[in-house]
Structure formats: C-alpha cells, structure tokens
C-alpha cells in the first residue's frame, strides 16, 4: 500500500518507527486505505494467530535550564572506543534522579546549543529537554517535579537546574529554534602578547554588528562539513585587568565560535581579535553568560 514509506535505517531497531507510521498514514488517501481495509471489515477467513504484543509507555518530555559551574565536566558522556575519557556529564547528572523516579528505560538528551568541557554556563542557564523512554511511572504533579529539581541540585555542585517541567513533544521544537536565530552572551578572559593599557582596548566597546567569516574550526572539522559561516558579533565591552590580560564581554549571534574569534584559528576566522588589537591573543577562559531563548517558561521558585 505504501511501498516507499518504510526504509530501513542504520540506527533504528525496526523499520516501523513512530514517525514513519505517522507519515505513511498521512500519505495514504482514505480511498486507498478503505480499498484494502474496508469499514466495516470483511469476515476473516482464517483463525487469529497469536502475535507477540509489546506494550510501551509513550515518552515523557522533561525540560528545564541548566547551569554548569565546572570546567571539567562534559555536557554529554565522553566515551571513545568504549573508554570513558572524563567523569560524568551534565546529561548524566540531570538524568539520574529522573530515570529512577520515572522508571524509564533510557533517555534522549538535547539542548539549545552546547558548551565545551572547559566552559561554564552561568546566568539563567541553557534550555534543555530530556525524552524519557518507556517511563513506567508518568504521573507526577508540579510539587513532585520541583522535588526532582531539588534532588538534582543537591546531588552535585557542578550543575544546577531550574524551571524543570513536563512539556509536550512539540514543545521540543522551541528549543532547536534557539540554535539558529537567538543571541548568546559570553565573558572571555583574554591574554595579549603585547603589553596593553586601558586606552588600547577602549575602541572595542564601540564596535557594533561586526560581521565575521568563520571557516569551520579545525577542532570540529573532522565531523562537520568544510564551509564558511557568516556570524555577527552584536556588541562587545572590555574590562582591563593588567598589561597582558583583559575581560571581553560579547553578545553574538547563535552559532558563533568565540574561541576562534579570539585566536583566529590559523587566520581562518576573519576578522578576529588578534587582527583588531594587532597582537597575538589567546583565550584563557570562557563563560556563557546567557542563552537568549525564552523557553521553557520560567517557574517562579
């Protein structure tokens, strides 16, 4: 009836995924469907055969915002060739109490962008959503959800979660919207090769809507296509620290590689801070100050 709807894919256990079935049902016209499966149905000619029936709970979606206070914590588990390279992860710290309380078989973690291991996420935090697979317990009220949030926050000082709430599957779309068009703010600690004075970095405060051409950074080029991306640095401000250091605050378009803007990535991000200051610069530390996506809705504490 629908020969092209079900294509075997590597990652999926069965060809009949939820999405594929939904799409197939939309594709097939009522006429075509009724031809094969009339209503009322025809009289069966054979006896019913025992089929193995598997019941699954529908996924539950939990969303919130997370802070990351550690510079040695990856966002998702860091495992290469079966070997864990770094202890724990934001995902695992948030998932632990949820997996056990919801009695779920597994989870899919996603977020509105992500930060490197050595970058902190401050302010209101980064929106995330977790799909809990086959949750055996799914009815929890707001007070109980707040307790889960407390449990997560008590479990570790490396992360903090806020606005934890149940959301619909569709609501997950809001989060990925943030990836392309929203803005993000950062603070970076910059080192300069040449000695600087306060006056030398003042001009940076006046630069607005700086257009960058960023070639895919070498550090991600092994898993991303080679391309040039145009990104905007909306504004910047500086705080002098000493003759070779200053703090740089930036507000940028989503998808801007901050580290590469600072050290130029072999000159493959242009313009870059090094060029602007006419000296070699490096980024010593980076913090995400805000991820300007207004989802999920804030939950007053």
């Amino acid at each position, binding site marked *: 009836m629908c020969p092209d709807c079900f294509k075997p894919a590597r990652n999926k256990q069965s060809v009949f995924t939820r999405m594929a079935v939904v799409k197939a049902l939309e594709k097939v016209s009522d006429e075509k469907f009724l031809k094969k499966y009339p209503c009322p149905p025809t009289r069966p000619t054979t006896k019913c055969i025992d089929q193995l029936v598997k019941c699954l709970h529908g996924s539950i979606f939990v969303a919130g915002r997370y802070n990351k206070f550690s510079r040695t914590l990856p966002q998702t588990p860091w495992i290469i060739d079966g070997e864990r390279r770094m202890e724990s992860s934001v995902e695992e710290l948030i998932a632990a109490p949820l997996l056990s309380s919801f009695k779920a078989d597994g989870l899919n973690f996603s977020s509105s962008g992500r930060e490197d291991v050595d970058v902190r996420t401050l302010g209101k935090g980064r929106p995330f959503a977790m799909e809990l697979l086959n949750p055996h317990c799914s009815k929890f009220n707001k007070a109980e959800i707040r307790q889960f949030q407390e449990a997560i926050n008590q479990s570790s000082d490396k992360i903090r979660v806020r606005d934890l709430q149940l959301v619909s599957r569709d609501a997950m779309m809001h989060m990925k919207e943030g990836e392309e068009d929203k803005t993000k703010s950062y603070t970076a600690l910059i080192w300069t090769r040449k000695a600087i004075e306060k006056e030398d970095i003042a001009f940076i405060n006046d630069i607005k809507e700086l257009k960058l051409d960023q070639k895919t950074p070498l550090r991600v080029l*092994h898993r*991303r296509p080679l391309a040039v991306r145009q990104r905007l640095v909306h504004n910047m401000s500086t705080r002098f620290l000493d003759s070779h250091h200053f703090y740089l605050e930036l507000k940028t378009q989503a998808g801007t590689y901050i580290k590469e803007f600072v050290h130029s990535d072999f000159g493959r991000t242009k313009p870059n801070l090094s060029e602007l200051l006419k000296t070699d610069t490096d980024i010593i530390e980076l913090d995400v100050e805000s991820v300007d996506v207004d989802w999920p809705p804030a939950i007053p504490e």
Partner: protein
Amino acid sequence: MSLDGTEEKNCEAQGPSVIERYYTRWYKTDIKGKPNEDQCVLQHSNRICVITLAETHPIIQGGKSIKEINYQISDGCSRLNNKVSGKSKKGGQFLTEFAPLCRITCTDETEYTIYSCIRGRLLEVNECILETPDLLLKKPSTDGYIAVILPKFEESKTVTDGLLSREEYEGVISKRGSAQAEPC
C-alpha cells in the same frame, strides 16, 4: 589567571598556546635530500593535520622575499581546485607523502616545493598566503600555514610514523649546527 577569581603572578606569561594545547608537532627534515628543507606537521587530537614550514626552512632562515606561490602543481592539477563536500569531505584530492602542495619562488630566484608529508585527503590550502606571502615568514606556524589534510580514519595513528618528533627534530638540528662547525 581565571574568571573564577584565583590569581597567578606572572601576568606576561602566555601559558600553553593553542598549538601546545591541542596539537602535536611532527617534522620532516631535508625533504627529498635537499638540505634544511624542513616542514612541520601539526596533528590535532582529532587527527586533522596542518602542514607548515618548519622554522629551519631556508625561506624563513634566509628571511627571503617571496615572488610567487603557485598551487598549480601540474598541467592537470591545481590545489586551488580542491573541493570537498559533506561531513566525509568527499572530493578532496588524495595525497601521499611526496605529493607537492605548492611551489614557492623567491626574489633571489630560488625555488622550493612544499610537500604533503603525510597520506590523506586534502581539505584546504591557504589562499591568504597568495595575497600576503609575508605570513610565511612572520607567522609560519599559524596564519602562514600551507594546507589542512584529513588522514584516513584507519590511518590516524600511523600517519605520523615516517615523521620526527619534536625531540628528534631538535636532535637533527643540533647535529647540523656542529657539522657546519667542523673544519673542511
């Protein structure tokens, strides 16, 4: 120095640079038997390699003025025509160790060929040095890079087998110095 509030004393010190933090330096010396024609391969922890001149290369040591950099290495092949697409970088020219990347001609008429040094797929060549050849002398290890190559996944560990480590390179260099000091 840190945003977290802790302090360190020597504010001029850089600490490990981008190259020191993420790359391993490998070297090939006296390439094709030509004295001092040394190159450096910066291998990122993700296996991507950046090909650069080594600081002992005659162009840098001699402070030479560059007349021309030519990526057209044969009638049918220009490294500038290299086009890769998609995550697996399909279409990139596959290079072996002695595949030429470019030819550099200096104002004193000396000519140097820069080689790949490793096996892999060519991802990009540095077009900035065509406009600003000076980068090769001023920033040979960063802005003046020559090319970016992606070794085959299966060969990621073995791709540097034929190259010298930093210590081995320094050993070769110091032997050169003493060789020159010996009487004829």
